[in-house]
Structure formats: structure tokens, C-alpha cells
């Protein structure tokens, strides 16, 4: 039996790894972040069942990490590939964490004392983290990482506080990147997604108005482990909102930006509106949509439940503009009311923009290293949409999850299992 390499430790990568490992095939799981978990680890609750995302993912992350047939290579990147299906030689760069993983206990003392605060990408940049950090509390592995872009010791040879504090003696400023070579029979690419930054849609005022957020920011705002501990707060006085609007297709189904439909955002907004109403029972939500895409199992029923039980109003319109009331920081949405054929105004305290799923930032780079093709939108291309839906353009390399095209957790998991079966044909 031969080994399999999986690139990307999100829910798709984890599922593929577990399917393979459970049947006895050894897997290397390469993840570029210091923790596996991917996007799903950062979501609050997940649509259609509203169960807590990290609560259902964390056991899988732990199972994966502690599985005797899985080697998790976190904070690593694939930088070279040679050979062919059945016999690939892969070069992986393990980035220096400047922390000896065998000694670090994940106690968090260093993070408390570290004086350098940096933008926290794991909370959608809404707060700060330290230069020595864990991405999130349930990180797997629970080992600290020093961010060498910001650490004072590594950039200016000052500070060195974490080394003094660490009781385990785990800090190692001299650690170097390591290159390792793997021999695998098959590869699964599951490098995930990025999200559209709606700064060029000036009419919605993102980045200009305090109370306009993207859906990913909202996921962190409504999350108990997020920057506001799950409390929704509006600028300028921190009051909680009573009316929220969600605007769909912000950047997607837009031939100038992302021409595709992002598949998940309609359901995400319905879920988000439900959660807001669960937090504050009098809260009302308005979802501005083009076509409400609720096509999967039990989704349509879910959208109806939102309308019936969670004070959600669906409005078929693409708002033309949002203006901010300078004093209250409330937002006035201008849209065409379909029923009356007039431009109407709706004043709300918070606006959430449903921005689309895009290919992950390094998708092209990884595709080049592996010698596989991407499609016209930059997602990983499959050989044939119908006949070979998990096969990339190079034999022996398979694809799963949102790097192939936007999809939800369920579909990512299904595709991951399918990719695992294909990899097993070569490795088993």
C-alpha cells in the first residue's frame, strides 16, 4: 500500500484524510495555516441544521490529527512535484514556527505576554492577535506559532519575552524552514476558497460606513469566540441592532466581477438572519435577493421557516445605493419596490453583504507547481464535468471542496469522499 498526499486541511481535506486513513492508507495532510480546520472552523453555525460549526468539526480535527495513519504537516506548503500517478515525488516546505512543537503545551502564557499586536486574520481582521499565536482556541495542533513578519525578536532582535516566559523552553528563534520529500501514489487538492472584497462597490459603502460588514465578518461578530463575544454592536454607541439587512450577490452574478453564482450565500444569509433573531427576539431582517437559491435538501423549507418564525422579509431587489445617517450611523437602503414600482428607502442599523466565494489566493500557484489546469474563473479544472468530476487535468491528482467551484459543507464532504475513493484506487 502506498501513501496519499492531501493539500488543504479544511473540512474537505479532513474528510478525505479520514476516509483513506480509516481504510488503512497512510495520508500526509499539508495545511498552510498553523491549524487544520479551514474555513469551517471560523463559521459560527451552519445552515439548515444550525448546529455549531466548530463543535461538529473539532472532533474530526482531533480524530484526524491523532489518527495513526495521518501525518498532519501544518504551516507547510507544497513547492515541488515530480513523477506520475502511482509514484509522485513531492517537495514540502515546513515553515519555521520558531516554537519546538514537541515541547510546547499550548498553555497560552506567551500569547498573553507578547507585546506585539497584529491584525487578526482569523477574526476577519476585526480585532488583534499577538505575534505569537494560536489561530483559534480549538486549534489542532494546539501549538504556538511565531509570526515572523511581526515578531520583534525576529525582525529587530528586540524583546525576546516569550522565550523568558515559556516554562517548557519551547521557543527557538533559530528554527529554520525545512524541506522534506514525500513519495505518494496520489494527490488530493482541497485548498479551499477566498472571499470577494467588496471595496470597489462604492454604492454599498463597505470600508466607509462602520455598520456595513461582509458575511464572513458577521460570522465572527455573532460567534461567542469572536471579537464581540457574540454580541452584535452598532457604531457609534455600541447599541444592538433591531433591524438588519442582508444584500445578496455583492460581487457575484456580476459580469464585471465574479460572473458565477456563489451557491451558498442565500442560505448563509437566511441562517445569519435566523441567528440574529435567536440572539435578540425582536430583531427583524430583510434579505435583498435576485433569485433565492435554496436548492439542496431541506433548504427551501428552511427559507420558509425563516420567513415564518424568524421575522425575515425577503425583498426581490438589488439595492442601488446605501447612505449613512451621519449622526446615528444608521444605513438607508435605496431599492426598487417591485410591488409598487417605486424607489423606496429602508433604514436599518446594520447591513451584511453576501460576497462570493472565489478561488483561494494561491490556487494558481499551487496549480502551477502541480502542473494542473484552472478554469476560466480560476477554480481548479476537472477533466469532464459529468464523466470525471473529481479528476484534475493530470492523472493521479484529484480535487475536492470549494477550490473546484463554490459549494457548501455537505457537497464538499461528498466530493472529498469521492476523491478519496479515486486516490485509493491508486494507493490501495
Amino acid at each position: 500500500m502506498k501513501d496519499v498526499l492531501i493539500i488543504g486541511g479544511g473540512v474537505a481535506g479532513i474528510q478525505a484524510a479520514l476516509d483513506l486513513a480509516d481504510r488503512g492508507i497512510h495520508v500526509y495532510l499539508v495545511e498552510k495555516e498553523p491549524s487544520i480546520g479551514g474555513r469551517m472552523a471560523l463559521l459560527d453555525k451552519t445552515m439548515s441544521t444550525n448546529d455549531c460549526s466548530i463543535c461538529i468539526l473539532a472532533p474530526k480535527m482531533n480524530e484526524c490529527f491523532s489518527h495513526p495513519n495521518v501525518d498532519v504537516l501544518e504551516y507547510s506548503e507544497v513547492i515541488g512535484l515530480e513523477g506520475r500517478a502511482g509514484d509522485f515525488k513531492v517537495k514540502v516546505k515546513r515553515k519555521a514556527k520558531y516554537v519546538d512543537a514537541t515541547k510546547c503545551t499550548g498553555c497560552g502564557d506567551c500569547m498573553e505576554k507578547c507585546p506585539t499586536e497584529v491584525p487578526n486574520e482569523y477574526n476577519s481582521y476585526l480585532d488583534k492577535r499577538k505575534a505569537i499565536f494560536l489561530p483559534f482556541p480549538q486549534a489542532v495542533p494546539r501549538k504556538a506559532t511565531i509570526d515572523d513578519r511581526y515578531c520583534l525578536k525576529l525582525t529587530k532582535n528586540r524583546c525576546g519575552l516569550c522565550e523568558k516566559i515559556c516554562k517548557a523552553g519551547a521557543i527557538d528563534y533559530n528554527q529554520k524552514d525545512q524541506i522534506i520529500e514525500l513519495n505518494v501514489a496520489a494527490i488530493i487538492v482541497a485548498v479551499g476558497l477566498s472571499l470577494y472584497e467588496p471595496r470597489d462597490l462604492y454604492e454599498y459603502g463597505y470600508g466607509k460606513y462602520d455598520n456595513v460588514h461582509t458575511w464572513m465578518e458577521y460570522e465572527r461578530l455573532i460567534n461567542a469566540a469572536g471579537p464581540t463575544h457574540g454580541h452584535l454592536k452598532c457604531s457609534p454607541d455600541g447599541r444592538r441592532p433591531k433591524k438588519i439587512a442582508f444584500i445578496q450577490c455583492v460581487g457575484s452574478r456580476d459580469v464585471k466581477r465574479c460572473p458565477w453564482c456563489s451557491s451558498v450565500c442565500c442560505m448563509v444569509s437566511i441562517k445569519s438572519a435566523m441567528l440574529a433573531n435567536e440572539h435578540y427576539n425582536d430583531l427583524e431582517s430583510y434579505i435583498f435577493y435576485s433569485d433565492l437559491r435554496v436548492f439542496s435538501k431541506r433548504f427551501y423549507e428552511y427559507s420558509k421557516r425563516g420567513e415564518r418564525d424568524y421575522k425575515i422579509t425577503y425583498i426581490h431587489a438589488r439595492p442601488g445605493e446605501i447612505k449613512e445617517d451621519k449622526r446615528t450611523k444608521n444605513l438607508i437602503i435605496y431599492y426598487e419596490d417591485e410591488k409598487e414600482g417605486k424607489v423606496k428607502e429602508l433604514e436599518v442599523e446594520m447591513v451584511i453583504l453576501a460576497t462570493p466565494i472565489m478561488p483561494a489566493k494561491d490556487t494558481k500557484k499551487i496549480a502551477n507547481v502541480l502542473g494542473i489546469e484552472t478554469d476560466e474563473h480560476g477554480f481548479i479544472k476537472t477533466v469532464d464535468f459529468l464523466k470525471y468530476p473529481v479528476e484534475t487535468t493530470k492523472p493521479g491528482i484529484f480535487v475536492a471542496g470549494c477550490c473546484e467551484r463554490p459549494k457548501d459543507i455537505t457537497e464538499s464532504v461528498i466530493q472529498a469522499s469521492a476523491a478519496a475513493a479515486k486516490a485509493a484506487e491508486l494507493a490501495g
Partner: protein
Amino acid sequence: MAEKLRIGVFVCDCGTNIAGFVNVPEVCEYAKTLPDVVYVKENMYTCSNAGIQEIMDAIKEYKLNRVVVASCTPRTHEPLFRKACEDAGLNKFLFEFVNIRDQCSWVHQKEKEDATEKAKDLVRMGVAKARLLEPLEEIKIPVERKALVIGGGVAGITSALSLAKQGFEVYIVEKENKLGGLLNHVHSLYPSNIDANEFLNELLEKVKKEKKIHVFLESEVESVEGYIGNFNVKIKGKKKGEIKVGTIIVAIGAKPYEPMYMYNYDEYENVITQFELENLLKENKIGKWKKIVFIQCVGGRGERVRYCSRICCMNSIKNARLLKKLLPESQIYIIHKGLQTYGTVYEDYCRKAREEGIRFVRVRDAVPTVSSLEKKDGKLVVGFYHPGLRRKIELDADLVVLSTPLIQREDAKKISQMLKVPLGQDGFFFEAHVKLRPVDFATDGIYMAGSCRAPADINECIVQAVAAASRAAIPMAKGYVKAEPYTPVIDEEKCMGCGVCVEVCPYGAMRLVEKDGRKVAENVPAACKGCGACGSSCIHKAINMRHFKDEQIMAQIEEAIE
């Protein structure tokens, strides 16, 4: 003399999920006062690597012989904590789970003091049960390396091909006289518009060449007995047989809804279903239609069935584009309630349809798709309220195509009963977990793929089919599975051989056997799911469930009402 009890209690903050509403330090202090508790620890996240390590270290350092974790739910976390016990050398059934999140902090977010008191009660009950826990051993069951696929449509065929390629023997049982299912009745497939016959024939060629695949046509599964790894299957019909398989994939597909009494479908011959249009296209019986109207959600989205059938929008667009190519002068309308052309490929496909001149009219979701469809002067007239124009408009048409949803087949119920797997409210098979186990049934060793799970198009059927093959391959590749030992202990002195337990067991795991000239109940551990139905129905109190013994549960109840 039994060894002295040394209980460790770990109380989880779950970030703020628990600690935000329950005073965890107070619960910890309280736990220290309980009998036989020798170690108590508060964890920010007991399930994190650090938390797990703390459990393992404490077992070794404090010689713990019982572990209680008060945190979330066994549904997601029990295997993890048990494994920690096992890795530290403790029998994993000496672990007890107390749920102070789902059953306490989450439901008492507005009563913090009471929540803390309740958490103490729950911990005290857990400790009481832990004191009576007994070590148990898991059962290892061998797995037959063969699979049964019920249904020979595109999903069933693809599952079978994948399993065969992975080295397993597969039996496909198909009730029709040929493989292919609905594909046999479809003209072409989106998004490449490949001919459906050509596509199917390619698959069938592969099946023919694959020696590991055995096809039973015009046959049905008569009965299935057994459990994961060891299913005994009887097949009836043209080709009879008895086979033993390790796993089963259900792929019986779905069928299009017949819109009887809707939109005068049964009266007017130019009102046809999407499915009938596929056949006309297939047989090249295209009329000289000048105006064609597609009506979406006929019977779907609350009209007859509640759900959205997912694939009909794309199917209409595909056929509209085909017709437009065949009849370039025609005007084609698609009346819909919100187009479901999700993702990159379908949205592109839909945009091309617009460019080619297909007209889309969106009507409101809350009302029927069209308000009237009648004949005026020999022409069909489709009436509906146009939300953009804000008035009722009428379109005359030569052909009206009704897009009806896929619905579950009649035999779904039979198969659900035979395999003891559930159907959802929508009539489709119900998965073990919507997101994390989307093609598994809750019953081990049985999986699903294709439109019997929910309406799915060809791409989705194929991905699901290979996924189901991946899941089914796991126990078969390993060659064994482990079962939890929550089996009944039968007191043969007390057992009267009445057979009630045999009646109530939903898994066929109880049977009556002759012993010393009288009938007594016997359990088949590998088939047993430990549900306890036998134990609770035994009026002679002859059955006691391992790990849920009467005395263990009574101890908890006594603590609860003290």
C-alpha cells in the same frame, strides 16, 4: 476486594459556551466534595489537544480508574474522550459523559445561578454512575468484502464501478430489464449537452468489461438479514439468488411527479411534462412550435410537494436551448420562481441561454407559478401576474412544458422497512448527518447515493455514487469493524421465554433458543445496537443492558431526586 475508586472530574468551559452561563470554578469545587473524587480540573476546552493531554496525564499521575467529563455531547465528543482514557491505559468504558452544555448552559442562558446548581446536580449524577461503571470489551466483527447495490441507474452503476475498481465484488439488483434508470428516458445532459444514450452506453461498456460486477436484471431484493459485514440477501425475480455481502448501497433513484389535474395537463395534448419533452426530443418528434412556454415548480415548492427539486431549472434551460437551436424562429419563455442555476458552470450556462434569446420571467414565490392555462381559439394561453409589469399578462403558446419535481419511488418505503433505514418528511432517504455523513445511513454498513437521497443531477449522482463507494470500502478494506458492547445480559433463571424482546428488537438481534428443555432469549451481539428496547420491555426483569444497568441508572436517579 474491588480496587478503591479514584474518580477524576474534568469540567469544560467550552470557551464561553458553558463558562458564560455556569460558574465553572464553583462546579469544580463542588465536584471535589463528592465521594471517591480524587481529582478535579477545569479546562477551557477539554476537547483541545491540551485538554486531552490533561486527562491522560491525570489518569497516570493520580491513578484514576474512573473519568467523568462534564462538557458537551457524547454525540460528537464521546469517542475522543474515550480514546484519551484508552491511550492512558484505562478501559474506555470507565468513562462517563455529563452534558452541561446542550442540556444546561445553552438552555438556561438567562438563569445563571440555577444553571450552576443544575450543572452540580448533573455532575453528581454522573459521578454516581461512574462509581458503578464496569470495564467492557468491544466486539470485533469480520466483514465480507462484497457489496450489494440496489438500483442500476447512473448512481448505482457508478458506485459499482468504483467499488469494483477498488477490488471488491459487487452485485447490482435492478428491477427493470436494463440498466440506466431515468437516463434511458432522457435526451441529453447538461452542461455539455452530450447525448444521454452515448453517455449511458459508455458506462454500460465499462460494466460489461468489469468481471467483479454481477448484474441481476428484472429482479428485486426480497429480504435482507444481518448486520454490517454480514448481510444475507435474498434476490427474487428473473434471476434469483442468495448472496452474502458486507455493505449495501441504496441507489433506487426517484421519478418525475405526474401533474394530474394541474394546468389542464390531462386535457390538452400540447401541455406536456419535461419528461415527455425529453422523449419527443429523443424520438425527433419536434413540432413546428412558434411559442414555447416552460412552467417551473409545477407541483414543487409547496404546490404538491414542499421541497425544491433542484434540477428542473437547469433541465428546462437545457431543453429551451436545444429547442431554440432546432427552431431558431421560436420564442421561448421560462416562467420560474427564482432560477436555481447555482455555481460557476450552471450560471454560465444560464447566461448563454439569455444571450441566445431565451426569455426568463420570474414570478413570486408565494403564489402558483401561473394562475391560468386555458385554450382560447385553439391556442394555449398562459396567464400569470408579472411582478415587474405589475399586472396580469397572457402568453399564447403552441407548447407548454410543465417542469415537475422528482419524487420518491414507491419501493422506497419497502426498502426502508427491509433495511430498517429511515425516510425523511420529504419521502427521501434520511442521512446519518446532514453535513458530516451525507451519504451514510445511521445504520452501519448501509449507504446511499443519487436521487433517492434528494433530487440530484448527473454530476451530483456521480460524485455521490463514488463517495458512497468510498464510505462502503472502509469496512471492506479493513476486513473488520468494532461494535460497542452495550449488549443485554440475560438472566436465564428469570427469563420465561415469552419472546417479547424478540418482537420489539428493531435490529433482529434477539432470538429464542432451547436450553435445558425450555426456551430462553439470546442476543446476537454483532447485530445489536444497544438500544435497550429489549431491556425496557422485559416484564420479568431478566434483561439488563451493559453500561446502562438498572443499578447504574437508579444510582443516577437517586442523586437527581435526593
